[in-house]
């Protein structure tokens, strides 16, 4: 763990730029018993440019509970650096108190009781109120959406993202970039981009595979407050690898560092005094990129769902992390003069849904998107005795529930559930509705397959995914969490090389070692292969929960992590 002093030396606070970040305000608020909307939105307008950043909403139109990770390991040089700081270490680093609203919003400790006290977070109608308030102070503020916007809920599933497009259009973003958007299929993306969006769908790293030509606008130039601003958009680099490439054939992605360097030079040549990268790279990829490509002033990071109350400074580049699921909006005011940032004010604004009032127009629009599906959304399937959450490097209770459902409903020995980072939490004692199930399963390749695999094959898959997460070079990380294994336990040494990390693979029900040559029945979902067969995962989970009535999922003890 780094100390606060070390962090400040690596943060903007110690740079030549004079500025403040929201953490001071947060601490002050923490001392108070009550919190008002005015206090949450309180902000000293600074300089001549305002950026508003929201990312990884995952189609959460309504407020949700979302538990931040308990385990979020950083590999190699970034071990212990934000965002790889959780729980009490996170509180210490950012001078926050346990048990406060800030601790609830940003960490996992004591989540259930704090959630009951402080309520749900997010809701795009509340986000609208925050955006309106910022625009009241700075009418030409830029609103930038980092992507993963059109996927992740029942209504997004049923409308192929149209609900999100309609609501986001009402917020009037100035640009967006993408990731899960492409899992709607290239035809649907084209339909939306061509017909529905009044703002550019940026993707500097998206090329057609045949001619290696740009498939989308790489950047957009703005002039705000007398400042020429270039916003470059970077889509998720590993789109055709981490998600089904056959859904968007003909597109190639990648980090393309040289391409980024060329674009920075190009926009500077066009007179850009401020270069902003609206990125879906993931925090560590962006941190490495910032260290290797000069001339980017601000990176609005996304993909890895990190929320940081202060910017991180790398090579004169300010890295901003604005969380996920609509929990936060970042406001960043910049004083740009003579082509340089002379000052800033930053605030990670937590969207406490019971403190910030809903914007009536957007609330009505959200209701209209949901109305045709209201009966389906609200149908209670069962109850949970346990806190159900997904986020974290290793098995969370939501995925353990999904794995249990796969094993029982598909009569399998072992279940495999992908390490997605989206999916809100549910509190113990609460109902599980169909909407809740879709919030953790809604996507376009849901087939729950059943197949046979050897122990060796299972290990190869686990090693492959582990290296996508724990490779010490961020450029080789895909930004998901570790694949969730049901019915088996294992040990993992995250510091080892691919092929050597996973040991002690054991069947939980018998305690027997998993033999490399023996064949096991495996059930899973979200295969990237075209033509994967099986019932949709949400039907499997629904039928399991219905049968159980009330589900109980104990914290997972079967993954032993070393080297962290």
């Amino acid at each position, binding site marked *: 763990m780094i100390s606060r002093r070390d962090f400040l030396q690596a943060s903007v606070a110690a740079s030549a730029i004079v500025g403040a970040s929201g953490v001071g305000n947060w601490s002050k608020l923490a001392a108070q018993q009550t919190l008002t909307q005015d206090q949450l939105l309180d902000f000293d307008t600074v300089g001549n440019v305002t950026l508003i950043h929201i990312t990884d909403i995952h189609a959460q139109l309504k407020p949700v509970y979302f538990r931040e990770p308990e385990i979020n390991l950083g590999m190699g040089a970034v071990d212990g650096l934000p965002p790889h700081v959780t729980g009490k270490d996170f509180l210490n680093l950012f001078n926050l108190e346990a048990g406060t609203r800030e601790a609830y919003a940003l960490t996992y400790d004591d989540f259930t009781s704090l959630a009951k006290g402080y309520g749900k977070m997010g809701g795009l109608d509340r986000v609208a109120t925050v955006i309106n308030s910022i625009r009241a102070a700075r009418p030409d503020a830029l609103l930038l959406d980092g992507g993963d916007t059109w996927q992740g809920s029942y209504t997004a599933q049923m409308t192929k993202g149209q609900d999100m497009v309609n609501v986001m259009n009402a917020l009037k973003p100035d640009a967006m970039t993408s990731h899960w958007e492409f899992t709607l299929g290239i035809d649907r993306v084209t339909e939306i981009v061509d017909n529905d969006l009044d703002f550019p769908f940026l993707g500097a790293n998206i090329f057609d595979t045949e001619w290696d030509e740009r498939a989308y606008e790489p950047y957009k130039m703005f002039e705000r407050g007398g400042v020429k601003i270039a916003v470059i958009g970077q889509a998720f680099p590993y789109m055709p690898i981490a998600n089904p490439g056959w859904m968007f054939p003909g597109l190639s992605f990648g980090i393309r560092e040289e391409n980024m360097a060329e674009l920075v030079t190009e926009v500077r040549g066009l007179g850009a005094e401020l270069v902003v990268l609206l990125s879906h790279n993931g925090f560590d990829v962006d941190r490495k990129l910032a260290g290797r490509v000069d001339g980017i002033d601000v990176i609005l990071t996304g*993909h890895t769902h990190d929320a940081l109350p202060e910017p991180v400074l790398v090579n004169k580049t300010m890295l901003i992390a604005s969380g996920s699921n609509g929990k936060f909006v970042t406001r960043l005011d910049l004083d740009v003069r003579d082509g340089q940032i002379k000052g800033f004010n930053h605030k990670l604004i937590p969207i406490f849904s019971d403190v910030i009032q809903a914007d009536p127009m957007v609330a009505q629009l959200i209701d209209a998107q949901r109305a045709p599906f209201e009966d389906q959304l609200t149908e209670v399937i069962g109850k949970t005795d346990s806190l159900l959450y997904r986020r974290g490097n290793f098995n969370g209770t939501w995925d353990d529930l999904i794995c249990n459902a796969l094993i029982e409903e598909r009569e399998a020995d072992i279940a495999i559930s992908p390490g997605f980072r989206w999916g809100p939490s549910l509190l113990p004692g609460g109902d599980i509705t169909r909407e809740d199930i879709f919030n953790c399963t809604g996507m376009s390749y849901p087939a729950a397959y059943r197949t046979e695999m050897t122990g060796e094959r299972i290990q190869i898959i686990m090693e492959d995914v582990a290296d996508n997460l724990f490779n010490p070079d961020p450029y080789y990380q895909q930004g998901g969490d570790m694949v969730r294994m049901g019915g088996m336990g294992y040990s993992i040494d995250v510091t080892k090389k691919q092929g050597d990390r996973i040991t002690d693979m054991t069947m939980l029900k018998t305690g027997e070692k998993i033999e490399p040559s023996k064949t096991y029945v495996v059930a899973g979902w979200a295969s990237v*292969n075209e033509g994967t067969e099986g019932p949709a995962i949400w039907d499997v989970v629904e039928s399991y929960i219905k049968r159980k009535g009330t589900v109980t999922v104990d914290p997972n003890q079967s993954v032993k992590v070393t080297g962290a």
Partner: protein
Amino acid sequence: MNFTRRDALILGAGAATVALLPVQAFASPVDDAIAAFTGGAATTEGGIELTAPEIAENGNTVPVSVSAPGAVSIILISTGNPVPDVCTFNFGALSGSQFGSTRIRLAGTQDVIAVAKMADGSFVQTSSVVKVTIGGCGG
């Protein structure tokens, strides 16, 4: 993740090849290929740039480009394919630039090496790791 029997067999076989052959076994044909190009001369770093994806989107067709200003010849070598030689670009005295681009098939995660012969007879070398992964769990 890939779960078809066919893909399992392909990937299983690919992984087995990598796992069973120690690094030393690879070193020899790769070293031989480099030596055949350099005539045994030592190589240095710098002056050559290899651009390849960090993770291949499709291991069967991986775009690779190489640039070495002032080179008369550049060889591309795969360290993990059954045959290391990929291709050699030759540049005449009137070449406007010394740049080559192609697509190569990679049997699995491996280093791709580029060696350039410069006009003065010296050699420069660089390499890049390209991962070929099962994928499917990001996000």
